[in-house]
């Protein structure tokens, strides 16, 4: 004898679900009434098994994920074609496991992006005096060593788009440019970046396209590389201090 309440519920409700799905006027509210509880139960169980933190919240999403129409597509429940009580349970479990995987995948990517997003205050809120202070002094030896651990592409791209290459001693900068040329098998005209890059315009977007062309990539690729790598700039003492002073000012 099967004591699982979900099995019992699905056995009882399955013919009604199948009948509703067979009707062109199938009422989504009726499906919600029939399946809300079983889906929640299965989702919470799968969430706990998969180590999803907020199982209740995931269960809310799973109900909509199964029953709600999607862009260009009907609700997932309409894809349940082998319509019997046991198949409904295994089908629901299969769908919810896919939803759980998607949920975790999104969380993982969001976590990877979070750090880069927190860089924004460094540039946005800095005063003219703070910017001048930042630019007037060269990087110290520790900062140069840190930058030296980055891939040479990242060094050149981040320091140019960040307007910080002048803080690198000219001989060191020249060595990095040579490393870049050797790696990419592509020459860079000197001085690099050229004066025109500095006086390109007032906003950052006007510098992306010319720099991308010089570095042999599309503007989309360069801006994406900045989005994904620029948070490394905060490893540098001068920017970290600026960021922390702005954060403290914001709190006060």
């Amino acid at each position, binding site marked *: 004898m099967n004591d699982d309440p979900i099995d019992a519920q699905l056995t009882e409700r399955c013919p009604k679900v199948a009948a509703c799905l067979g009707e062109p006027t199938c009422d989504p509210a009726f499906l919600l009434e029939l399946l809300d509880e079983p889906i929640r139960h299965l989702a919470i169980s799968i969430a706990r098994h998969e180590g999803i933190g907020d199982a209740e919240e995931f269960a809310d999403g799973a109900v909509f994920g199964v029953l709600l129409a999607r862009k*260009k597509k009907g609700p*997932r429940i309409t*894809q*349940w*074609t*082998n319509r019997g009580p046991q198949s409904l349970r295994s*089908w629901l479990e*299969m*769908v919810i496991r*896919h939803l759980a995987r*998607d949920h975790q*995948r*999104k969380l993982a*990517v969001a976590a*990877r992006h979070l750090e*880069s*997003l927190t*860089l*924004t205050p460094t*540039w*946005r809120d*800095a*005063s*003219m*005096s703070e*910017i*001048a*202070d930042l*630019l*007037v002094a060269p990087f110290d030896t520790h900062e140069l060593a840190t930058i030296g651990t980055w*891939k040479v*592409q990242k060094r050149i791209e981040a320091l140019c*788009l*960040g*307007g910080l290459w*002048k803080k690198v001693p*000219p001989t060191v900068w020249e060595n990095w440019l040579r490393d870049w040329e050797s*790696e*990419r098998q592509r020459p860079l005209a000197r001085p690099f970046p050229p*004066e025109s890059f*500095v*006086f390109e315009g*007032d*906003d*950052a*977007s006007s510098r*992306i396209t010319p720099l991308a062309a010089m*570095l042999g*990539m*599309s*503007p*989309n*690729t360069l*801006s*994406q590389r*900045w*989005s*994904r*790598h*620029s948070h490394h700039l905060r490893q540098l003492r001068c920017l970290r201090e600026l960021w922390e002073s702005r954060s403290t000012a914001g709190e006060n």
Partner: protein
Amino acid sequence: MHDPMFIRANLAVALDHPALSDDSDTPAKREASWTVAVALGKARLFAASLDELEGVLPYSLALAAIAHFNERFPEWDEQTEQLDTTWDEITHPEEADHLLISTLRDRLDAWAAWVAIEELRQRNPTLIPTLDEIELRLESWDDGLNVHSDLIATLSEATLVLGWRNALVEPYRSDAPWWLTDEIDRIAHRSMETAVATMPNSDFWGVVQRRAMLPDFVPGPVLAASTEGATPTVRTMTWVHTDRTWRARLDYPDPSNDAEEDRLRR
């Protein structure tokens, strides 16, 4: 004859594969069947003329193609899941584009094969077993690509992707994944705006521009005053204009006594 992508030629080669005549079910036969399904499906997606090769995917090839898909899917899924970390590791932009293109090509192939298999299923629904699991796998694959939409959108102006977008015909064009619609342009635009918002602003570049008009900093007084071989000690004086838009800085050797310091400051 309309076949700018040489789909008919690819189908002819695929149909000629010796593994297709194997009686037994082998990996080579499954892969060859997959290739046939992909070519046939692409002929539908891009309205290619097949002439004497026109027809529906044979039942045995459909089953073998499904088996191939199920075998390969974990690898494709894993590749999609790791797309951002792999992309970050790549040095050359061309290789980064290739990684994304090959991912989209695999997904496009799967879409094409699915179209060919679905065409057979429409004609005889009982012939092909339930495909719920495969549909879910394809959806999961799409979900995985959605997570990396910012990366994939870097291909919005890639020739191959533009070619696919332009060549798609109805009803498939209306049902195309986002990376074969205007949505990829919108995502690329949004990503660019997000990146620009985290870059130095016009105030910052204004200071960079003013700095660029000045000669590079040379610690002249320090060098002039220091004795050979000794490490000079440097003091710094800074002046800031009242509106804080201009700054001056002087580095000088450490004075030997207070009187000299006072004289320097005056």
